């Protein structure tokens, strides 16, 4: 039986999903030549990538905060 994921690892999974969604939107938008494709890329694609990156960075902070607490 596989080990259950730690909360931080679940967050990394969420971050990965968001970034993947953003990359998917970017890939799709690059196949279309239209102003709307640009706008969708900017708002949805970059938004998802930024959110995913933010979730990951926050999980890094939590990782280091968790280590500090256990050290004390």
């Amino acid at each position, binding site marked *: 039986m596989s*080990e259950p*994921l730690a909360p*931080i*690892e*679940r967050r*990394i*999974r969420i*971050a*990965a*999903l968001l*970034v*993947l969604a*953003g*990359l998917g939107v*970017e*890939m799709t*938008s*690059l*196949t279309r*030549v*239209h*102003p*709307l*494709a*640009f*706008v969708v*890329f*900017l708002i949805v*694609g*970059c938004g998802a*990538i*930024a959110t*995913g*990156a933010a979730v*990951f*960075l926050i999980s*890094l902070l939590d*990782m280091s905060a968790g280590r500090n607490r256990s050290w004390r």
Partner: protein
Amino acid sequence: MIEGPETWALLAISAVLVLLLLFRPELTRQRGGKILAFVGLFLLPALTAWAGFMRHLEISKSREFCLSCHVMHPYGKSLAVDDDEYLPALHYQNNWVQRDRACYTCHTNYTMYGDVKSKLRGMRHLWVQYFGSIPDTIHLYMPYRNRECLHCHGGARRFLATSAHTEGDTTLAALQSERLSCLTRGCHDTAHDVKNLNGVGFWKEPVP
């Protein structure tokens, strides 16, 4: 599909790394996995988004991009008018501008590129296209500047040899200082003229 193999390569590499972290998040328990996650979930996606943005900016310079909105179709059609008086058609058909960038080459002051004001105007065009009402006659925000013409023609032999450009002491200076427009009535005053396209003949562009 639009070219830009570097962008596609970055997308592919980013996607592979992200998929790896999606299915194996426990990799981040080790130090190497944390570094991999930092690259795969932050650095590479940021770089890929930037590459995608630059790629979209390049795409926005293409004729296909400008003509993708229905309201612009007559302007695209006017490029094939079989009449030397039509300035855009003359430039387009003689390859005086790059055909796949014909719109951008002349209208560089308000396309989705350039300064922030031009980009915001482009967004306004989109808003009007989908939520507003498109006017019957589309006007430039400001008179067409000689700068866009003289960018290529200024100092050219043929331009200087044309007597109308150099007659009198002041014509050339007036053109260069924009006191006299290149599009003055009687000079190069026919641009797209989309309202009168029904009665004109069209040049059939040969298929390569």
